[in-house]
């Protein structure tokens, strides 16, 4: 345990007393202590370094089909906050009755961190020094490198969660990550490439990036005079990092049940048993992958994490649930209700979204492609359920089965329902990639998630770009 706050069991016993209220269907209280370190460097200097504590909590009450939610800083006046949450729930007009939610078996647990290298035991000076060394590596790699920006964060969370169905959880969590962005600039313009890292149990991942930073700098310089992709319909090979983002954006969000409830049209499409992709496509979401940023043994409603198969053998077999969405669709909660911080109520989110490895050797992914795109790395993505876009960090032209030259501004888009069925090969090169970014939804960003995947080949991918 990195920090001893000297808190006694008085926290739990106080919360257990506070959740005993009559005429409230569900009542939960969550308290948190968060300790965060953030360091930003620019070239050879530390630009920003903070070490902050967040102390606060929230109360969520469900009364006759309406939620009241209150969040607060500090640990004062807890009884008053409970009163307010109940009042807010009863102030609203009563709506359609909520299906009775199942209450998972009550949990009484205390979970301590088990770390490889604890970031909280590494001094800020050492963290800054490591970042500044990477900055130096970037600058030395190529004369066109104009700037190297490094961002590092770690956040230790100590949480107490109690509900009125006898669940009481004391939990420690760690999230850490960051990125190193190398910018090259010359008369042709500006190009950038980044290295991203993340973990939930090991500062050691920060210590192993020298080669990656050097490669990123070389790549940024090589992209300076790369021509822009000509927009159109291409076969595309995506590397494991981008394939992971693809799984997250192109299917994971659609599998979140809060996007499906109340939508009869979508539920007709998302019926379990629907064929979505090739027979060797297996996509699942897991909270049990120790060390990944999506590691989440118990969610923020006190539900133990389930491994959820979303697509198995190319067929839709599951979805991601909170307690509420599970009740509305008469399925079981999956442990996917997550809140970024005590300022937010839990909503359905992914954890570690995984595409299982296939059987195609890497070189074979390119066979038979006359003209296509090889896309590597990710600058993020977005979806509205039906459509998705992801931004590749690097792109290369494939000509006659060979990768030939770099291109810039690779934006891959598609329709979720049709693109999965256009996957024609799943690589063997399964990679556990952890980034320092996060997922955004409902104003809660960046939530730590992970994507683990192999390379994929996708036919008929619509690629953005200006006309020739």
């Amino acid at each position, binding site marked *: 345990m990195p920090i001893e706050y000297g808190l006694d069991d008085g926290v739990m016993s106080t919360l257990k007393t506070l959740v005993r209220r009559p005429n409230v269907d569900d009542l939960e209280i969550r308290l948190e202590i968060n300790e965060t370190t953030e360091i930003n460097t620019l070239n050879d200097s530390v630009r920003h370094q903070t070490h*902050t504590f967040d102390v606060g909590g929230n109360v969520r009450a469900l009364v006759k089909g309406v939620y009241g939610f209150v969040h607060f800083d500090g640990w004062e006046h807890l009884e008053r906050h409970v009163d307010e949450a109940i009042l807010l729930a009863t102030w609203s007009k009563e709506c359609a009755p909520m299906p009775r939610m199942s209450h998972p078996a009550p949990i009484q647990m205390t979970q301590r961190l088990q770390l490889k290298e604890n970031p909280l035991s590494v001094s800020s000076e050492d963290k800054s020094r490591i970042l500044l060394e990477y900055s130096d590596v970037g600058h030395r790699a190529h004369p066109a490198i104009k700037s190297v920006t490094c961002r590092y964060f770690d956040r230790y969370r100590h949480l107490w969660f109690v509900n009125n169905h006898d669940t009481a959880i004391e939990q420690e969590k760690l999230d850490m990550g960051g990125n190193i962005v190398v910018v090259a600039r010359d008369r042709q313009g500006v190009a950038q490439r980044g290295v991203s890292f993340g973990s939930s149990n090991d500062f050691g991942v920060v210590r192993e990036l020298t080669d990656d930073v050097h490669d990123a700098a070389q790549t940024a310089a090589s992209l300076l005079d790369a021509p822009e992709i000509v927009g159109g319909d291409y076969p595309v090979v995506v590397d494991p990092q981008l394939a992971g983002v693809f799984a997250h954006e192109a299917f994971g969000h659609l599998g979140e049940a809060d996007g499906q409830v109340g939508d009869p049209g979508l539920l007709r499409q998302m019926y379990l048993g629907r064929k979505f992709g090739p027979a060797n496509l297996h996509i699942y979401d897991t909270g049990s992958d120790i060390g990944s940023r999506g590691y989440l043994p118990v969610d923020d409603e006190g539900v133990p994490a389930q491994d959820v198969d979303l697509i198995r053998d190319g067929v839709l077999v599951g979805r991601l649930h909170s307690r509420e969405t599970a009740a509305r669709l008469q399925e079981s909660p999956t442990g996917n209700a997550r809140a970024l911080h005590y300022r937010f109520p839990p909503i359905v989110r992914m954890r570690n979204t995984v595409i299982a490895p296939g059987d195609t050797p890497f070189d074979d992914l390119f066979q038979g492609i006359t003209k296509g795109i090889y896309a590597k790395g990710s600058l993020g993505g977005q979806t509205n359920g*039906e*459509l998705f876009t992801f931004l590749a960090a690097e792109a290369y032209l494939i000509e006659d089965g060979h990768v030939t030259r770099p291109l*810039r501004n690779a934006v891959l888009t598609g329709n979720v329902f049709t693109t999965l069925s256009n996957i024609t090969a799943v690589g063997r090169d399964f990679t556990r990639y952890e980034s320092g970014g996060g997922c955004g939804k409902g104003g809660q960003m960046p939530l730590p998630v992970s994507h683990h995947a192999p390379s994929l080949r996708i036919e008929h991918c*619509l690629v*953005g770009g200006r006309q020739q």
Partner: protein
Amino acid sequence: MMEFKVKSGELEDLQWRKGDLGDAIEYTRQVWTMTRQGGQTPLMRHGSEHMRAVRVVEHGRLGFATSRTEGWDNLLKDARISSQNGLKTAMQFGQIPSGYTEIPQSQWDEQKIPRMGAVVEEIYTFLEKFSSEFRPTVSVSFHEALTECRNTTGGRANWLRGYWEVSAGGREVDGIDFHSVSGIRISQEQIPSTSSLAEELRERFEWGKKLRTIENGRYPVIFLPPVAMALLEPVLARLSGPALIAGNSPWENQQGTQVLSALLSLVSDAQLQNGPRTAPFDDEGTPTQTCSLISQGILQDFILDRDSASRLQHTPKGFGYRNTLQSPIQSLPSTVVITPGSAKFDELLRRYPRLLVLNGWIGGRATNPMRGDIAGNASDLYLVEAGEVVGRVKHAVISVNAFDALGEQLREVGADAQWIAQGMMQGAPGYIPPLLIDGVDVAVKE
């Protein structure tokens, strides 16, 4: 059980040393939101947040410390320690104009809650009638932030920012076609009138009922305010302090030079009525102003917080904002305003025999903001023929370079400006009119 108090000590009690250079700011932010979405449990939420921040310059280095609960003296001590490894700075903490010493009264009134509920129900019911399978989403919220600032020159000021926001929309799923509409209204004084929002959503939904196909090619496109705002992000990035300091911005020496179309004038306006950031000061206590950034395409000024301004030897003009209470001060505009033109939307529709109207752009953000290339999947795109909207277009990727689009490709700036809320990917609110841009590349899936 241990208690962590939010207000442990008063700002007035902070003991500066003689000769200190610094400031101390306390932020208190409150939000009340009522949300209703088809198929989900309605939610009424209230949150309060506090953040304390101390900055101090010692031996020419900047130190700072922030906390939600820590006492002022400890924060000042932490800031002094932090300055030992801080950046070298020439930042000044100048006089604060008088007249802001009273703590303003909150504009929140709990009697507004029933009215919020009524507005939510009114729009929700209206949207439900779009079709039997339309899934509405409505939220009404009131945001208020009190800032209390003291600095070592003896300056003190307290100010309040608050605004109402109504957002509404929804979607109908037919087969694998998602037909979505959304819009917002913002107002400072009261819950905004929602009749125009409801009518706008109804009109868009009607426009989209019929699907039309188009061919690959270059089209004139009207970028409606939400996507026009996305085009501005690379522009704001080139103007911002960190990019200039890092030497990444190609505009670092371009003040007084034509960088965009002469049709485009861009202002950061902290005095615009109903602006979410409209207030006498920014988040670091610098008096705000209406500041021309680009006038008729000519670069006028940069977006610099106090620290960036000192490094670049500029005068700070009130561009220091926190995106969230826990994020550090950044170089950001107050409200981004494109000076509207004279053409109403209906007139813009008639400028070309055939054009497109873009209102939604999945992933429409720059892969490299300094370069400005943007491509995104059009999620809300309409075909216009002879001035009439004839249907919705699917499976199209819109690709532009923001600097070209706002430069040689910009044909006209519309008159009908709308508020755009600050968002997860967007550092400032905007008040933006439609932009008519020619020669936009559109790739269509066959």
